[in-house]
């Protein structure tokens, strides 16, 4: 069956009414930014995923590909940003195949906002959509409820205030590619240091008009763990074992002997 399935909804509402609270999903309490420059657009993100106060993933990917030259950065509920992005990426490819044209940023944004509006904000996806297309370079953001913004520089997520502080201070019109990369990574770094929901590394994606998009995975790694003081390797036999069972895995080889033929003519097929 295609689409979402609501089978468990009633059961969970019942459970909730009995006083069992809802379990928490991984949310990317995140810093994401985007910024346009002379000949294109840059987006960047941190790489921390949290579940409550605990860091669930220290190096997750928050930069998603919608089309070869349209990328988006996601904040909010991690599963929603991932899934909504994959769905729209598929629809965008089908659409561009049907139209026989390169996909446009405005199309991606419209597909996203229509999908998110349909779900009335229950899909917690907050996205910065950017890219280059036949009409130029574009930078937009989409909120979970379906509203959108267009801007020269944008930031989203729990670290958006820290990031915006940098963007507002250092942004200027008509920056070079390098200046824009510097600005975006600086903005993310401020989120990493000053927002507890953001951390670890900087991912960055540059989309330049007429060129392939460049993804810089772990563009900066300012949070490498220092070496431990001690080794915690245990002597073998430290743990008490009650029972051991071994399952040997063997390579199986198949030999097919067609009827009415001698063994010597047998055809061998390796499994």
């Amino acid at each position, binding site marked *: 069956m295609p689409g979402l399935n609501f089978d468990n909804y009633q059961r969970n509402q019942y459970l909730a009414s009995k006083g069992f609270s809802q379990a928490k999903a991984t949310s990317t309490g995140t810093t994401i930014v985007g910024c346009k420059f002379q000949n294109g657009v840059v987006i960047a993100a941190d790489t921390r995923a949290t579940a409550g106060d605990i860091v669930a993933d220290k190096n997750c990917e928050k930069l998603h590909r919608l089309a070869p030259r349209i990328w988006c950065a996601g904040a909010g509920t991690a599963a929603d940003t991932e899934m909504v992005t994959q769905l729209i990426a598929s629809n965008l490819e089908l659409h561009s195949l049907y139209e026989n044209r390169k996909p446009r940023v405005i199309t991606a944004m419209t597909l996203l906002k229509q999908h998110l509006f349909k779900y009335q904000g229950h899909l917690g996806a907050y996205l910065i959509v950017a890219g280059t297309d036949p009409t130029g370079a574009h930078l937009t953001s989409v909120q979970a409820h379906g509203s959108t913004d267009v801007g020269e520089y944008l930031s989203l997520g729990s670290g958006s205030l820290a990031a915006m502080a940098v963007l507002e201070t250092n942004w200027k019109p008509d920056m070079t590619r390098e200046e824009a990369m510097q600005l975006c990574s600086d903005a993310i770094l401020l989120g990493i240091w000053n927002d507890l929901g953001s951390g670890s590394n900087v991912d960055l994606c540059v989309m330049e008009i007429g060129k392939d998009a460049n993804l810089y995975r772990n563009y900066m790694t300012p*949070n490498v763990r220092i070496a431990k*003081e001690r080794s915690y390797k245990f002597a073998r036999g430290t743990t*008490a074992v009650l029972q051991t069972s071994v399952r040997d895995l063997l390579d199986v080889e198949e030999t097919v002997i067609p009827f009415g033929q001698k063994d010597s003519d047998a055809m061998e097929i390796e499994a």
Partner: protein
Amino acid sequence: MSRTTVASEYSAEIQSTPIEHRFNPYSDNGGTVLGIAGKDFAVLAGDTRHVTGYNINSRYEPRVFDVGDNIVMTANGFAADGKALIDRFKNQIKWYKFNNGGKKLEMQSAARYIQQLLYGKRFFPYYVSTLIAGLDEEGRGAVYSYDPVGSYEREQCRAGGAAASLIMPFLDNQVNFKNQFIPGTDGKEKRPFEYLSLQEVIELVKDAFNSAAERHIHVGDGLEILIVTKDGVRTEYSPLKRD
């Protein structure tokens, strides 16, 4: 109960209970503390990050204090309550000396007195997990730990605060050698307890905090270790990750 309240979100589901407003006197300021007692020393360590929500208020706000008489103390959780409790205890040590001709307050007396301070606010508690460390009358390392209303116990080691649940099992394993057996004995003979040296304990504390800083967002910035020996209290600082 037939009154309905619509939540402030764009929710189709109407709440059947009225929205409740109330004053909340407590907050959580994060941070983690850890105390280990050695053969002839004790350490009390804490990170120096002070937070509310997703914000860092300070990267260096000491939370472990030398309260005098070779006793170190921390009260971690709600920072204002922690400060109030420690200030009150410091003040009481001063009065104890005035009244008893400068007599030293022993660890077990200090421990019992803190229980009285905590239980005195049984119905409006100090929202903290309290730890003190020092040397007992025989000169052995001692760590006492408390719940918010004064129930206490002397222990070999104890972690408290935000990342206590991350650090405590590690301490069980590496200080008391829990779940470790002597190889070759078929899991019959436990690895015997032995005291760790001060050097080993400090290394263990640093590793514990570095690990906690990796996985808990409220832990980081700096680590301050207060070391109590018969020669007095010494402080060691080392940086932690700042993200």
